[in-house]
C-alpha cells in the first residue's frame, strides 16, 4: 500500500456519495465500499466523514433514506437520491468537469 493518498475537499466527497447512490440505493457501508472499489482505494476517506456527508445531504433534502433489509439479512438504512439531489449532482458534476479540464490544460501546457 504505497499508493499516494489524496485529501478531499468537502464538496468533492458529496459528489462522490451522490454519484454512488444515484446508481442504486445503498446503505452507508455499501457507499464506502463502492467508492473504495471504484477509485482503487486512491482516496483516503474516513468512514465517519462519509456518514457525516450522508446525513448532511439528507438534511438538505438531496438524499432520502429508508430502512430495509440488507443482502445479509440485517436491518440497514438505505439512501437514495431525491429530485433535488439529482439536480445538485448534475450541477456539481458539470462544475467538476470544467475544473478538472482547466487544471489538465494548465498541466498539459507546462509539460510540452
Amino acid at each position, binding site marked *: 500500500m504505497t499508493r499516494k493518498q489524496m485529501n478531499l475537499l468537502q464538496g468533492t466527497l458529496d459528489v462522490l456519495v451522490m454519484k454512488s447512490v444515484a446508481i442504486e440505493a445503498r*446503505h*452507508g*457501508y455499501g457507499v*464506502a*465500499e463502492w467508492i473504495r472499489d471504484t477509485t482503487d482505494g486512491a482516496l483516503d476517506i*474516513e*468512514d*465517519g*466523514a462519509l*456518514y*457525516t456527508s450522508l*446525513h*448532511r445531504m*439528507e*438534511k438538505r433534502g438531496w438524499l432520502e433514506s429508508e*430502512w430495509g433489509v*440488507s443482502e*445479509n439479512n*440485517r*436491518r*440497514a*438504512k438505505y439512501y437514495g437520491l431525491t429530485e433535488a439531489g439529482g439536480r445538485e449532482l448534475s450541477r456539481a458534476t458539470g462544475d467538476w468537469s470544467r475544473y478538472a479540464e482547466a487544471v489538465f490544460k494548465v498541466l498539459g501546457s507546462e509539460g510540452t
Partner: protein
Amino acid sequence: MRLPPRVRRLFRLGSQTQIQRDLDDEIQHHFHEAVRSGVQRGLSEDEAIRRARARFGDERAYRKALRTIDEGRVRMREKSEFVDGAVRTVRFALRGLQRAPGFTAAIVTILALGIGANSVMFGVVDRLLLSPPQHVTDADDVRLIQVRRTLSNGDVSTGASITYPDFTDLGNVTGFALVAGYTNPRPWTIGRGADAKRVRVVGTSASLFPLLGVQPALGRFFDANDDELDAEPTVVLAHELWEREFGLDPSVLGTSLDIGAGRYTVVGVAPAGFTGAELAPVDLWLPMKVHESIESGDGWLDNRNWYFLHAVGRLAPEVTGERATAQATAAHRSGRAEMAAEDRYDTDAEIVLAPIIAAQGPSLTSQAQVARWLGGVSVLVLLIACFNVANLLLARSIRMRREVAVRLALGVSQARLTAEVVTESLVLAGLGAGAAVLVARLMGRAVHQSLLPNVAFSDATIGGRMLAFTLAATLVAGVLTGAVPALQARRTELVDALRAGGGNVASARSRTRIGLLVGQAALSVVLLVGAGLFVRSLNNAQALDLGFDADRLAVMSLEWNETLPAAERRAIYEEVLAGVRRLPSVREAGLSYTVPFRSSISIGTPRVPGLDSIPRHHAGGPYANKVGSGYFGAMGLTMVQGRPIEAIDDAEGAQPVAVVSASMAQAIWPDGSGLGSCMLVGDEPDTPCTEVIGIVENHRREQLVEDEPHFLYYLNQSHPAFSGPPQVLMAGTVGDPAAALLLIREEARTTSSQIRFVNATSMTDFVEPQMRSWRLGASMFTAFGLLALIVAGWGLYSVLAFDVALRHHELGVRAALGANRSRIVHLVFRQALTLVGVGVGVGLAGAAGMARFVEPMLFRVSGTDPATYAIVVVTLMVVGGLAGLLPAVRATRVDPREALRAD
C-alpha cells in the same frame, strides 16, 4: 421553535430517542458489515475489528456530529409539517364551508352584524368618552374650566359659560401654564349673494392652539398680535372646509374671506379633525376679540352678565388639579367680589376643573350616558351572535357525529378534531370580520350623521383603535363559537356514536344547545325591553305640549349687506312678510324679535300701578318680545281672554298694548282682573300706560320640561331693546314645513338684493337637540333588539328543524303507533314555547334588575313599565311560535314506512 408534546404527537413527530436508536442501528450495521468483509478476506476477527475502527475515524466525535445533524433535520421537518398541517386544516375548513354555502353565509352574516355593530358602538363610546378631542397632546394636563354656583332661586348649577372679565381673571392664575377662551360654534355666513353659505364659526383666544399642542396643517395659527381688539381680522380654516370649499388649494393663504359683517385674511389651516377642546364640528376659527367686536361692539369687554365664553386651561408643570382649582376659585371670587357684595352673585361660587376625557370627568352628558349603555348593549349583541353561531356549528357537529366517529376509529386524534373545529370557527370569524368592516363603515356613517350630528367623527371610520377592537372582538367570537362545539366534539364517544347510527341524540348533548337558546331569548328580552323603554321616552318627549306647534312652524331670519340702515331692513321684512302670507302653504305669519328655544330677552320687570312689585318667577324674567300681527296665529297660540296684537297695533303711532301669558297674568292679577289693566314698561317716570289687551296660553320658553310656565309678555311698541328691525319671521304652515321652507326662502331672496342670506328652518330644529339622547337610545336599542330577535328566532328555528330531522325515526314510530297530527305538532310546539318561555323569564328578571340603572336616562317612563314588558313577552312568544311552525309542519309529514325503512 419547540412544540408542545401534544402538538408533536398530533403530527406524529420523531423524538430524541428515535434519532439515537436509528443512529446506533446504522453504525452498528456498518461495523458488522466491515468486520464480516474483513474476515471474509482472511483477517482475524480482532484485526478486522481494529481496521474497521481505524477506518471509521474518531467514532465519538462523528457520532456527536451526526446526532446534531439529525436533530436539525427533524426540527426542520417538524416546522414545515406544522405549517403544512395548519394550511391543510384551514383548507379543510374552507372546503367544508364551501360545501355548505347557506350555512356559511348565515354565520358570516350574523358575525358581521354582531362584530360590525360592536365596532360602531366602540367608535362612538371611544369618541364620546374615552378619547380626548383629536390633536390634543398630553390631554391629562388639560382641564375644562366650569363654574359651580348657587342661583338666586337656590338651585346649584355647574356651567361652562363665563364672561370675558371672568376669563381675564383666570388668566392670572399661576397654576395654569396657559388658559384659553372660546365661543360655542355659531352659525355664520361666509361669501356673498348666491355663493353665501352657512358655516360654524368659533371665536377663540390665540392661546387655544399652543395650549392643546396642535400644529397647523398649513400656514400658522393666531399669535398674540392677531388677538387684539384693533388687529387686522384673520381667520384659520378647518381642514374640512379647506377641502370642501377650496379643494385643498394652498394658495388660499393670504386671500380674504367675508365672514358675517367682517372681512378676514386667511393665515392658516387647522389639521383634519381638529375641533378644539370640544367635540362639535367647527368650520372656521377667528380671533375672539376681533370677531366679537366686529359683531357685537365692545359691550362684552367689561360686562359680567354677558356669558359667551368657554374656558380651558393646561396645568403648569408640577401643579396638581386641586391647587389650580383653589387658585382659580380665589381669582374668580375676587373678580366677582363687588357683585357678590351687592347680593347679585354667589359669594361661594367655585371653579370646577373637569378632565378633557369625558370618562374621567365628574358628570357625563345624557348623550354620553346613553352611548355608554349602548356600548354594553352591543357587547350583548355580539354575545347573542356568538351563541347563535356556536349553536349552528354545534348542530352541524351533531349531524357530523357519524363522520367524526368513523374518523376517530381510523385513528384521527381528538386533538386534531379539536384543531379542525376551532380552525373552522376562526375562519368563519375572519370572514365575518371582513364583512363587519363593511357593515361598520355603512352603519357608522349613518349613526354619526343621523344620531350624533353634534359630534365630529374623523372621516376614517375605521381608525386604528377601532380596527384593534374589531380584531379582538373577532378573536373572542372565534374562540367562543369554537369552544362549545369543540368540547362537544371531544365528548363524542366512539362506540356510542357508531351504534347510534347518528339518529339518536342523547339528552346530555343537547343540554348545551338548550342553554344557548335560553340565553339568546333572555338577552333578546333585555334588549327589546330597553328598546321599548327608550321608544316610549322619545314618544313622551315628542308628545309634550310645548304650547306652540313646533312641527307646523317655519322660522325665517335674514342677513344683510352690512351698511343697510335699520329702517330699510324693517321695510324689507314687512315686504317679505306680505309675500309669505300669500303662499298657499302658509297659514299665517308674523314678525318677532325672539324665538322659543333659541333666544329670549328680559328688559326688566314691568311695574303695575297699585302694586309695589310683581311676583318673581324662579326662572327669571318676565321675558319680553315685540311681535307683529299674525304672530300668535302663526305660533298656534290660543287667546285665553281678549284679543291678540293685530294690524292696527302695528301702525305708526298706535297705542302701546301688551298681551300677557296666562301664568304671568295669574301671578299679577290672581282675581282675573288682568284684561284692560295698565302696565308700565320702562323705568322713566313718565312711562305711558301699556294696556293689557289679551291673555294668551302659556308655552315653553327654552326647555322641553319647565315645571312652572315662565312669565312671558308681548308688546307692539318700541321699547329701546326692540328699536332695531325685527329679527325673525314666524310662519305657521299647512302640513310639514319642509315644502313651505323652500317657497319662503325663494320669496325672501327675490324680494330684495340687499338680503345676503335667507336662513329658513323648521321650528323642530331648535327643539330636536334636546331629544337627541332619547332618539339615540330608541334607534340603537331598537336596531340591536330587532337584530337580536331575528338572530334568536332563527337560531330557535334551526335547532327545532334540526331536532325534527334527527327525530325522524322516533316521529315515524309514533305515527305508526297511531299518534295523530295534532299530537305531533303539540310535541314540537311544546319544545319551542318551553325554551322561549324559560328565556323570557330569565330575560324579564334581568331587565327588571337593570331598570334602576336605566331609569335616569328615560323620560316619564318607569324602568319596569308593565306595558313595555307585556309587549316584549308577546313578541317573543309569537317569534317562538313562528320558529316552531315550519318544523312542526314538517314533523307531521313524516311517513312512518319510510322512516322505519331508513334504519
